């Protein structure tokens, strides 16, 4: 019963520290208070802003329909928290239960939640990245700066990388009437997340809206003028593009560098944790006082062969934070697993793109209804004879149905007829994902561990 006593004390007057003051950190803090935690609560964030929402930064803000400084997240309640904003966590002493801060201060905890998220992968060449006109888009400040520059009517915007963020930026630029070139190393946009079949539909969507889309190509160098302003970009096919704005959209890197010496199981792929959000240490032993949530977490998922998934999805950050918070102040028999079915959305060129499951696990895809050519369809992904994911272009209402198919491991190809089935949807075709053993610029889902048919360890260079 001694442990029950500890838990009671913990809930009443324990000290909980949350590193990462964004969506996951805020939702965890709210959940702790909702569930009756009355001890001290500290939130640490490296940005000087209270928690804000990121999805509008690549959409509404660039379109001028909202401003970057007014995207703060609504609060469900007053938190009575100690906020340490504008100061990064720089280290963790697991034995002494302290978090070190950039200003030299240290914060003690009884339970720690790490929700430090990711940062945009910068342009690898530092001098070129520093050119005036070269942007990444992740934070409120990034978005405000890019919006200001788009307002100044640049001659041409170059978007490097056609993942979701890059495609959304290109979409916003076209809506503003700006000339845009998109350079993508793969054969089509969104290939890493949705595969080549759906990627081709995304490519046609971009071209219809006047994007100068160049695939199968890499940007080899950015060139500035004598004043340090971006002037042009060189491509691997030998051509040159004149552009005064370039947005580097090459995916994200997990914010784990501050944990390097801590002994926690943290690396470039995130922080490994169990299904209850408890972090592993470097020996693979689960901790019981350190929890992780959001983009930085990497946890095993029962629906996907217990592979460790890290998901850069808005809904995952919310759901995982709520589970982590609950488990931090609950006895082991009351703890809950984080078994969220991955789901994300994007909107670009006036089309709502949504997905459930993990499309990148899919071997084959079936266009179960609608048509790729009309940019209105539902694609269902199959893996080893079961439904593993679905994606919709402007057919959101079907996703819930396919989510249940995924949850129940329904057979693939689906045995039932669907409405609006077209000739192209009569049989599955290869989903055409890139070889997972090759490095990609920016996967939205990183898979590691093993799949039952394919056990291997793959060397992935840090700078792909």
């Amino acid at each position, binding site marked *: 019963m001694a442990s029950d006593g500890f838990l009671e004390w913990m809930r009443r007057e324990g000290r909980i520290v949350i590193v990462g003051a964004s969506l996951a950190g805020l939702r965890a803090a709210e959940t702790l208070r909702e569930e009756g935690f009355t001890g001290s609560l500290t939130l640490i964030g490296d940005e000087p802003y209270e928690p804000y929402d990121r999805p509008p930064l690549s959409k*509404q803000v660039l379109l001028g329909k909202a401003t970057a400084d007014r995207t703060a997240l*609504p609060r469900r*309640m007053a938190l009575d928290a100690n*906020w340490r*904003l504008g100061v990064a966590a720089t280290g963790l002493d697991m034995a002494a239960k302290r978090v070190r801060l950039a200003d030299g201060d240290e914060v003690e905890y009884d339970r720690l939640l790490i929700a430090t998220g990711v940062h945009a992968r910068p342009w690898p060449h530092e001098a070129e990245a520093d050119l005036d006109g070269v942007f990444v888009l992740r934070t409120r400040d990034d978005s405000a700066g890019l919006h200001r520059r788009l307002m100044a009517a640049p001659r041409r915007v170059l978007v490097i990388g056609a993942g979701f963020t890059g495609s959304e930026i290109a979409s916003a630029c076209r809506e503003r009437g700006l000339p845009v070139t998109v350079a993508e190393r793969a054969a089509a946009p969104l290939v890493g997340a949705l595969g080549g079949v759906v990627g081709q539909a995304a490519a046609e969507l971009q071209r219809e809206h006047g994007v100068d889309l160049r695939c199968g190509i890499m940007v080899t160098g950015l060139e500035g003028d004598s004043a340090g302003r971006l002037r042009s970009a060189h491509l691997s096919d030998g051509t040159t593009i004149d552009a005064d704005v370039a947005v580097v959209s090459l995916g994200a890197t997990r914010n784990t560098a501050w944990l390097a010496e801590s002994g926690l199981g943290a690396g470039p792929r995130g922080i490994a944790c169990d299904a209850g959000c408890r972090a592993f240490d470097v020996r693979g032993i689960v901790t019981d006082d350190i929890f992780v949530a959001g983009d930085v977490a990497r946890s095993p998922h029962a629906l996907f062969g217990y592979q460790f998934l890290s998901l850069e999805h808005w809904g995952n950050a919310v759901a995982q934070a709520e589970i982590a918070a609950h488990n931090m102040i609950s006895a082991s028999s009351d703890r809950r697993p984080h078994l969220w079915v991955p789901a994300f959305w994007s909107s670009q060129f006036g089309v*709502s793109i949504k997905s459930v499951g993990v499309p990148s696990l899919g071997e084959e895809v079936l266009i179960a209804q609608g048509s790729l050519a009309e940019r209105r369809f539902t694609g269902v992904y199959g893996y080893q004879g079961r439904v593993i994911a679905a994606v919709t272009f402007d057919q959101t209402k079907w996703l819930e149905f396919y989510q249940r198919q995924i949850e129940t491991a329904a057979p693939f190809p689906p045995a039932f007829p669907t409405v609006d089935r077209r000739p192209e949807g009569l049989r599955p075709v290869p989903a055409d994902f890139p070889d997972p053993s090759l490095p990609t610029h920016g996967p939205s889902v990183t898979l590691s561990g093993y799949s039952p048919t394919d056990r291997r360890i793959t060397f992935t260079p840090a700078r792909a």
Partner: protein
Amino acid sequence: MRLVVDLNRCQGYAQCAFLAPDVFAMHGDEALLYNPHADDSQREHVARAVASCPVQAILVDDLGDAAATVKEGLSSGQ
């Protein structure tokens, strides 16, 4: 007044765009754009949008707490 829409839940019913058109707008057939920091004069419209959303995807700052939480956010960082 701060708001956020859970776009995983949103299915593009467009009730909000009808009831609070200065805050919510459809962008194409199904994609939703909204102003995450709506003017307080829109409160009544937004409240109706929140109540009528078939999938309950809209979260708005609670009126009573708003002042306290904003102050809490601003007094931080020391």
